Each structure stands twice: as structure tokens, then as C-alpha cells.
């Protein structure tokens, strides 16, 4: 029996500005189980980023409830590494913020970096790394505090296609081997299909869940998935639903 780790119940969120109000989400309900990889796709501007901010508790819903168990790691579209810090110091940033200054925390972060191929770059500055490596460093920074849920807001969309495939591959491997729960937001249908256990399709703004699909792949590896026979079937289906 899977345990629920995040639940949105009839969540509504309204942005207020002088010009008026924008309903970004309305009666939005869904839940995520522990260890699950959920992808959320939706038309641009429908309220996806809003949804993540609500999940992370950075904003309170106007109505409804967001319940979660566990801690969050947030990863943004661009790596947002601090250019004046070395990679090691960037990776340890969340530890500093959370005042987890004990040496074993640092050692864990370093270990992660070494394990995922950044060992030689710990003393480098972000400007010296390629886009793909920077994004990997950003993921390791997200993992440094050992969060229970990863919130990924289009983390690959700033990368070029080739790098993107590779980084998606890396990230998928890292997230699965660390057995994390992940909530991935993306524009990219094939990215969602190649990574997730379950895909939620959102409506246009205000966002609601239009469809939920549990994907039936035997393999977890994104590149292998792309070669599977049912990949294109899923793609067409989601594409249709997205454009309804």
C-alpha cells in the first residue's frame, strides 16, 4: 500500500494586482504517492508554476487545502547557481540556509557530487561548466538536504536538445536511484512520457486536472522509453488532450 505524500484538495489560487485578479487555479485536486514520479503538463500560462509554489508552501491557497508530509527541494528552469560561489559552495547552499553545518551533511553533499560526475568540478565556478553540468549541479544542490519531494519546474527547458536528452537521462537516473518522490512540470509531452510514472494533464487557466494517466512502460530509462512501441501512442493521446 502506497503512502500519500502530497495532496491538493479543491485548491483555488487567485493573484491580486491593481489591474484586477487572475484565477490561476480552481478546484484543483490531485495527490502524489511516496516514491512516485508525477509529471504535470499543461498549456503555457495555465498555472503550473503557481501549483508548485503552493505545493512548496511558498504561497497559501485562496481556498482548499494543500497537505504534505516531508520536506521539499525546488529546482527551477534555469540552474540559478550563484556565480560567485564554487560548485561545492553552491551545492552546500541549502545546508547553510537550513543551518545543517555538521560535517557529515557536507560530506553527503560532496559524495553526491562525486557520485554523479561533478567530483572534479567542486572547486570550479559555475561559469566554467557547461549548461548540462550546471543543471546537474543544480539538481545535486536540490538533493543536498535530502528532501522527500522534488519539485521540478521545467528544469530542462533552457537546455539545447542534445544536452537536454542527456541531462534528462542523468536526472532520471539520479532521482530513481535516490528513490525520491518527484513532481515535474513541463511543456514537453515527450519529456513527461519518458520520465514519469503518472502524467496529469491540466486545463487552460484556471488550472484543473483534466486527465490522469498511469503510464505502462516496462522500463524506467528515458531514452529506452522513447524507443518503445507505445511511446508514440501516448504522445498522440496527450497531445490531443493538451489541445482540447
Amino acid at each position: 500500500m502506497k503512502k500519500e505524500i502530497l495532496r491538493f484538495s479543491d485548491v483555488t489560487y487567485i493573484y491580486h494586482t491593481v489591474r484586477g485578479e487572475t484565477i490561476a487555479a480552481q478546484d484543483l485536486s490531485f495527490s502524489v504517492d511516496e516514491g512516485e514520479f508525477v509529471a504535470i503538463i499543461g498549456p503555457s500560462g495555465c498555472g503550473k508554476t503557481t501549483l508548485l509554489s503552493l505545493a512548496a508552501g511558498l504561497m497559501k491557497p485562496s481556498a482548499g487545502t494543500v497537505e504534505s508530509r516531508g520536506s521539499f527541494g525546488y529546482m527551477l528552469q534555469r540552474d540559478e547557481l550563484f556565480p560567485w560561489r564554487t560548485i561545492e559552495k553552491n551545492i552546500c547552499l541549502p545546508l547553510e540556509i537550513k543551518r545543517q553545518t555538521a560535517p557529515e551533511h557536507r560530506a553527503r553533499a560532496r559524495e553526491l557530487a562525486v557520485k554523479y560526475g561533478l567530483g572534479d568540478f567542486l572547486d570550479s565556478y559555475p561559469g566554467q561548466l557547461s549548461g548540462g553540468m550546471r543543471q546537474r549541479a543544480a539538481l545535486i544542490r536540490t538533493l543536498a538536504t535530502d528532501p522527500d519531494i522534488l519539485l521540478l519546474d521545467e528544469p530542462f527547458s533552457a537546455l539545447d536538445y542534445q544536452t537536454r536528452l542527456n541531462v534528462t537521462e542523468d536526472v532520471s537516473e539520479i532521482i530513481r536511484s535516490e528513490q525520491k518522490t518527484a513532481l515535474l512540470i513541463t511543456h514537453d509531452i515527450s519529456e513527461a512520457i519518458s520520465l514519469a510514472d503518472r502524467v496529469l494533464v491540466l486545463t487552460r487557466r484556471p488550472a484543473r486536472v483534466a486527465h490522469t494517466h498511469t503510464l505502462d512502460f516496462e522500463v524506467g530509462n528515458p531514452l529506452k522509453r522513447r524507443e518503445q512501441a507505445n511511446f508514440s501512442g501516448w504522445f498522440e493521446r496527450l497531445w490531443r488532450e493538451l489541445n482540447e
Partner: protein
Amino acid sequence: MKHNLTECSDEHMTFLKRRKKRRALIWALRLGLLALLLGVWELVTRVGWADPFLTSSPSRIGATIASLYRDGSLFYHIGVTLAETLAGFAIAVVLGCGVALALWWSDLLREVLEPYIVVLNALPKIALGPLIIIWFGTGSTAIVFMTVLVGIIVCILHMLSAFIATDKNKILLLRSMGATKWQILRKLVIPSSLASFISMLKVAVGMAWIGSIMGEYIVSRAGLGYLIVYGGQVFKLDLVMSATCILCLLAAGMYFLVALLEKAIVKNADR
């Protein structure tokens, strides 16, 4: 990126050589221009096309500075002005950054104070001269106060706009890690404003000179600004020109120091 200089191509060597040559040419022309200006100035006063009583001349400036040096007042006046300028500069920068931080911290404070800052920025500070004399007397305190007054608004506005321009996504990232406002300030806002801080220093140096000389015009009994005013009043143009030349050198020197500081910090910041 580091390049290994021993391994660079011939073409790159010629490129570097040409660059070096060009730098040398530019410096030669700069110095030549200076020599030309001084030469022409000297010449026209010597042959009587211009009255040295009104225009002074390089040789007379030299003589004036030498006599100031001999009676021991040269370094006294330089010291007075330099001390006032540096004190005013330091206070304006420190106080200005402090105020900018406070304004960044509290939106309410910022919105409340905005019109005051705008007015203070627009106000010609020299209009406050009489008030300053009455409040602070005619000593160095008044001049330092004037210097601070002239410089601080620029510091505040410059730094505030830098603080406010901090990348919103990076703030979001820190907030998602549970950062407090104080942590956001220390880990992100201040370090990312370093470049702006330096460019602010460059502006503030200029402002400090304006402030201190303006202050000396109104109240002082010593300093380069005083020499200029005094020289003007007694029609000793040599003295006016001498003090102005020294001022040029000092201002340039101070700007140069800030530029050096910039180089050092930038080198440190993004290797």
C-alpha cells in the same frame, strides 16, 4: 578560460604585439597632447598674446607650487582637503549603503520616504550652505557634512536600485530552501550587488570632491578650495590655477585607486 601562453599560435602573437603597440601609441599621444597644451599655454603668455596675469602659465604655476611647498602650506592645504574629502566619502558610502539596506528591507519605509529622497536629490545642496554654517560653524565639520550631503543620495539611489534588481528567481530559490530575509540579504542580495557597489564608489568619489570643494568655497579657512576662492578674491590667478591643477591630480589619483580596487575585486569574483 585560461590560455597557455607558450602554446599560442603565431597569429595570436602578432595580435598581442599589435595590441601592445597600440597601447603604447595611445599613451604617447596622451602625453604628447598634454605637453602640447602646456607648451602652447606657456608660449602664448611668453610672447604676450595672452596676459599671464589673467591666464597664468605653466611656469608660474610651477613657481607658485614651489613657494607653497617652501613655506610649508602646500601639504597642509592638500591634507585638509584630502581629509575632508575622504571622511565625507567614507561616511556617505557607509551611511548610504545602510540607508539603502533599510529601504530594501522595508517596503513600507521605502514608499514612505520616496518623495523625500526625490526632493533631496533634486535640491541643489549649496542652497543649504548658510544653514550648515550656522549649525556646524566654519570648521571642517561643516565641510564634511556638505560632502556627505552631496554624496549620500547618489549612494542610496544607486545601491537601492541594485538591491531591488536582485534576481527574483534566485530569491524564490532561497525562499524554497526556507531562507529568512536576513539570509537572503547576506547570501544573495549583498554579493550580487558587488559590481554596482564599485560603480557607485566611482560616482561617489567624484561627488565627494564636489562636496568638499563646494564646502570650502562657502566656509573654510584652509584647503585647496579655500586657496582657489582666496586666489580669486585677491586676483592671484597663479594660485587659483595651481590649486586647480593639484585638485585634478588628486581627483584622478583617487579615481585610479577605486579602479584598482575594482580590478582586484572583479578578478576575485569571477575567476
